[in-house]
């Protein structure tokens, strides 16, 4: 007995040591992937889907990118029960669209995809993915450029900085962070050139090679449509017109003349929209909840009593309501009247939980009406008034309000009016004023904000300014 127990402790100890120390520390993950497993073509495609997944967030296309530009300007105002966006509605200092973090998360992911695709053997699929990635990157940079900078033709006091131009994915292998971690802001000119370059190099990769992508993902048509938007922002009217013409001539998407809400519930005009499943429904954070509430009872005067679900943050500004032909315009017919805390208001039903679940709506990013209006505006600016009138009348007729005979300079006003009426609540209004150097008008008799006011351009957040000392904030902040 003695002999056995004498060696027992030694046996236990030596067993433990002989197993080897480092292997004792091996662990695995069952829900995360290491980098080796994503460097494939299918991995790249899944990462592109990751970009769309990020775009769906409430802080991007899920809500803010569409909602904030509307309340920064004059299409919507806060409802009596609003709790969100109060500072933004008042255009308080620093209250603006802030998509910095979200945008660069997508941009660097796209950069990573582009890097891997470069390393992989070229296939038709990989070319399409590359085109898609370039176009998505251009879209991200466009939204950044219009939020944080002025447009090329409308600089104020020659301040010409836009956002940092990041072309590479970021990897960290230890040690001090290098200079590339702390980029300076690129100039407005350089950013727009870069956007154009991405779009023009992305297009041939997608053309004829994008089957199955559109409209839930970016295809060749969306690339061209985005080009027409990008040129419009730069007031390159000819280029904008040409890109729009390509879309109008080559796509089989037309202006829908039925029930206007079907443009949104059935994506009748979409060149690119974000698709939401039931599980992705954004509920009370959704656009539906922001622009109104779910149906509840109607009172004797036909007003919804506003007891449904939803935050009901925005109502439509009376000034906008007054601009519609209330008898004939199908767009006006899509509005809904309600009484909130005794106040009579109008709600938009562009987002109405059309896909079923509360807050489940597909988000239109690019649709044919915008492209048509891009071209109409470009024609008007190019003084090709007949062509401009033809475009705007095409839209007017489909919306039930007949043709206009406006000409010359009043035609541009008509185009811009139709643009406001058509694209209301889709995130265009503030940027349409800003890109043309116009004052930001406000509803309810509030004073307009002059274009030169520093609050027209968004502030780079304190967090980002603190994290990167090479950044210069926009003047005034």
């Amino acid at each position, binding site marked *: 007995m003695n002999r056995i127990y004498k060696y027992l*402790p030694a046996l236990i100890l030596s067993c433990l040591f002989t197993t080897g120390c480092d292997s004792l520390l091996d662990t695995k993950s069952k829900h995360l992937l290491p980098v080796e497993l994503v460097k494939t073509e299918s991995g790249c495609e899944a990462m592109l*889907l990751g970009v769309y997944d990020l775009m769906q967030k409430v802080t991007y296309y899920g809500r803010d990118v569409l909602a904030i530009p509307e309340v920064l300007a004059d299409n919507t105002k806060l409802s009596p029960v609003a709790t969100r966006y109060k500072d933004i509605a008042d255009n308080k*200092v620093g209250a603006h669209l802030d998509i910095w973090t979200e945008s660069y998360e997508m941009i660097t992911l796209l950069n990573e995809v582009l890097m891997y695709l470069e390393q992989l053997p070229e296939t038709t699929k990989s070319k399409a993915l590359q085109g898609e990635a370039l176009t998505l990157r251009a879209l991200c940079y466009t939204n950044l450029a219009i939020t944080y900078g002025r447009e090329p033709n409308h600089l104020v006091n020659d301040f010409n900085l836009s956002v940092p131009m990041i072309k590479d994915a970021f990897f960290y292998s*230890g040690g001090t962070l290098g200079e590339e971690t702390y980029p300076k802001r690129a100039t407005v000119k350089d950013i727009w050139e870069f956007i154009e370059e991405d779009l023009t190099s992305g297009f041939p990769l997608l053309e004829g090679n994008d089957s199955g992508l559109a409209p839930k993902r970016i295809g060749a048509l969306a690339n061209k449509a985005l080009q027409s938007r990008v040129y419009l922002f730069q007031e390159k009217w000819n280029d904008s017109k040409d890109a729009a013409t390509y879309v109008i001539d080559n796509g089989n998407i037309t202006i829908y003349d039925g029930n206007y809400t079907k443009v949104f519930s059935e994506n009748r005009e979409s060149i690119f929209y974000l698709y939401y*499943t*039931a*599980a992705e429904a954004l509920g009370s954070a959704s656009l539906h909840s922001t622009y109104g509430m779910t149906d509840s009872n109607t009172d004797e005067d036909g007003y919804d009593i506003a007891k449904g679900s939803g935050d009901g943050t925005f109502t439509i500004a009376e000034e906008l309501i007054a601009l519609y032909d209330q008898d004939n315009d199908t767009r006006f017919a899509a509005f809904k009247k309600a009484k909130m805390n005794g106040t009579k208001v109008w709600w938009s039903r562009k987002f109405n939980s059309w896909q079923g679940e509360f807050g489940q709506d597909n988000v239109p990013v690019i649709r044919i009406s915008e492209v048509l209006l891009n071209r109409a505006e470009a024609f008007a600016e190019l003084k090709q008034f007949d062509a401009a009138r033809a475009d705007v009348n095409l839209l007017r007729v489909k919306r039930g309000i007949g043709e206009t005979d406006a000409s010359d300079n009043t035609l541009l006003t008509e185009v811009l009016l139709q643009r406001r009426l058509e694209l209301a609540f889709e995130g265009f209004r503030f940027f349409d004023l800003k890109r043309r150097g116009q004052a930001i008008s406000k509803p309810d008799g509030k004073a307009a904000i002059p274009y030169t006011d520093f609050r027209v351009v968004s502030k780079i957040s304190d967090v980002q300014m*603190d*994290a990167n000392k090479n950044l210069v904030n926009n003047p005034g902040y």
Partner: protein
Amino acid sequence: MSALFSAICIGMLFIAGSDFRAFASNDSHQPIGPNLPQVDITTVTGQVVDAAGLPVIGASVIVKGSTTGASTDIDGLFTITGLSAQKNIILSVSYIGYITQEVRVSSASPVTITLQEDTQVLSDVVVIGYGTEKKKNISGAVSNISSDELTRVPTENMQRALQGKVAGVQITSASGTPGGAVSVLVRGSGSISANNGPLYIVDGVQMITGDQTSGIIKSTDVLSSLNPSEIQSIDILKDGASASIYGAQAANGVVIITTKKGQEGKNKISVSLSGGMQKIANKIDILTAPQVAELDLIAYKNRYGESSSEYLNKLNEYKDNGWGEDGFSEAPTYDWYDLLYRTAYVADAQVSLSGGTGKERHYLSASFNNTDGILIGTGFQRGTFRVNLSYELAKWLTLTTNNSYSIMNQDQQSGVRASNPNRIAFLMHPANSPYDENGDYYTSLPYGYFMHNTVQMQNLNEYKGRTNKLLSANSLDFKITKDLTFKSSYNIDVVTINEHLFIDPRTREGEKAQGSVTAYTKDLTNFQTEQVLNYSTVLDERHRISAMGGFSYRHQSYQSHGATGTGVSHPSLHLLGTTAIPTEVTETFSEWKMAGMFARINYSFQDRYIINATIRRDGSSRFGEENKWGWFPSVSAAWRINDEAFMKDIAVFDDLKLRASYGVTGNSDIGDYVARRWYSSGGAYNNSSAIIPASIGNPFLTWEKSHSKNIGLSFSILNNRISSEMDFYIKDTKDLLYARTIPATTGFTQIPSNMGGVKNTGFEFLLNTVNVKTGDWEWNTSFNISYNKNEITSLQDGLSELGRYKVGESITSEPVYQWAGVNEADGRPMYYDKDGYIVYNPKPEDRVWSKPREAKFFGGLTNNISWKGFDLSFFFQFQNGGVSLWSDKITLLASAGDSNTMLDKYTSYWKNPGDVTWVPKPSYEGAYPGNPRGNDQESTLHYEKTDYIKLKNVMLSYNFNNKLLQSFHIANLQVYASAYNLYTWTSYPGNDPEFTGYDTGTYPQSRTYNIGVKLDF
């Protein structure tokens, strides 16, 4: 390097093993018979043994009145020869730690002398890492709390019972939540991003602690499942040298908890019952509904003018509400404090059985605690069972198994800011009643911002958590020789947490999707094994040497799954399976492993000069490929001055000891996978799986390392009437684990890194006095005070500022705009710029660093007065020097007129030019000419001092006379009454100055009154 270390360990083992001899049989030595004929003695032989019959080696045996003597050998045997023939002699036998004994020898037969341990000394045994040590030999800074002190405080939570009792240990309840989280800081915060809590060890098992829930339960700690009554003692290893034996987990100190064990003797049954009630301790002064409405109308008038449509619309709206012709005076007021809080009841029952025979010891206990929360619908329940057994399988082998099982239920509340009842209580527009005219709940409240009916939510919704914890600590103790022991332990700590969230379809939150159910289960398994070899000997009676070496391995993993369903078919159906639409399914797995080798050597000379050295090598799976392993050395020394010859004449000292130590400890408490670059496929688009980067990784990520120095002095004088301990320390932490903010242009917002350093410098003072000790009277006082200063010593890349951190400031300081009060001329809020000038729109660079959130000074004062059977104790706890953001004040100061506000906003707002007040002129939404920063945007205005003195505990007890009880077979009977959190002196204007974080929606502290009875059979 690790291979060399292991070779040494094994080598030590074999040397020790081959050297040992089997236990000498004691039975051959006959005791001295009284009837033996007397003979002349020239030679004395014998053996010295301890109470357990084991040989005492190195004991000194001296013939009294001479210098002749001998030391006992390895078998405890001694032989003294060459004595002049005598009829009888007297032997004086002494050994360190034992009472010196004199034995009369009057026969030539061998004698057996049994030495008794000096219990006076042994009662002060302190548990240190992988062993115990007598308090007088401790060279580091270790605090010891006995069960007596713990059970005096009527709380369900062990950590709260320690509050204010231990110098250098700052314990703060995160809130008043029953069973809720408690922050324990041993000598300050050394870490920015990793956990700052200590390592908890219960009966040798490194515990799973903290909040392990998915967040349905808002405030909890796995440690709340521990029953404080089962604890025998708590030892806190505070200095780096003491804690260093736990290496990479010890940077925040180590709390060693020892549970009660059976003692040899008759079975003892103890029963303890108590009950009590609790109420909210403090409320914030807020407005009535007419005051809120009046203030709002003034704000509209001031902003838009008396004839503006905005003002008139508002006035009409309020008139239509039926609030009177003036729009406010007839508004009804509902007190949401009264609607949400209640008098809650507390009950606790404990029963235990303990005892043992020669070879076996047992302690069994069971308990039940029910603590209703003061917030309606909240509460805490805990049942615990414990079985502690030890059995001597053979003289050389003892099996010990300590097991506990506990079930803890918690009911809590919504943590969403807009529906957290602990905010609603003071922010709700007071014109709202939770009930409509028919007495039914409003789904959405009619007035103001806060529309969630929290009374309804607390009554209909479920925010439940259940924690099951099984702890099993098993060991085999081999006694290889008297000097050499080996302990082989195998421990498992299993925690299962079930959370259940039910949102009733009738609530505002629930009506959107017709209610929802979320269920979440998490299983944590923590396996540990430790193999420890202990050797100790005394050479030449003066050199006490002990050595310890061992190996430890820990593997912890968890797997969790959760699901959400919407569309509750009927409000009485609360389970996932009864919902219409499954909306979310998750499953997570995570694991980490740690291996360590350690050794300690201790040498003391005449128990006067004591030197200790330890070393540990730890490896953790959490760190980067390049930096998995680390070394943690320590050294400490003590000098017991009162044992010096020159102190012989200074009779006043019973003890005087100088201590000094240095040790390196680590902190590895970060995420399991943060060191690697990972991609998550959790998202989806268009029903296909989508991949996005989840973490950036850092192959060089490694421990935080704390270098701690400690110098201490302990003394006791006047027959131990006054005793004191004081310690000065510097804890220098380097390579902080930190999720560093990086520019978002990288695509990531944070990067896990080691950077910079934090220094904690502090002083601790403990004084115990026996003020009165005459006849029936005894009055004891214990006072402790600690000072700690926290300072960032460096940041990454030599930066002097990084995000919210700045070199020279505390890690809890943060940049904040400087409030400058209200412009006397026009009532606008003003700020200071960085140069001290008044501005209205301060810029980020105008921010100053706030004062540290943590207290500078803290401590406690306990008094125990006893007279005959009566015992009165009262305990004060205090802290001073901390300043914290009261986050809810930001909301309270908003000027939207849609929520309640602080009374000052109504009584002291700016009215006329020249008014000096801190409350700006009321203006709707805080709009003023020039668009200044509002007073509802964070600034120094929202920072408040958290100084307090609390009369935390008062207890009066009476122990009945034994004689009377014996006739009922009762050994002891005590009845008592106590009060907890009785009174707070503070200038803090919120609910309570005790909280963690930023005081937003903090569950209020309660005041508790208890009565109880304790019975021993």
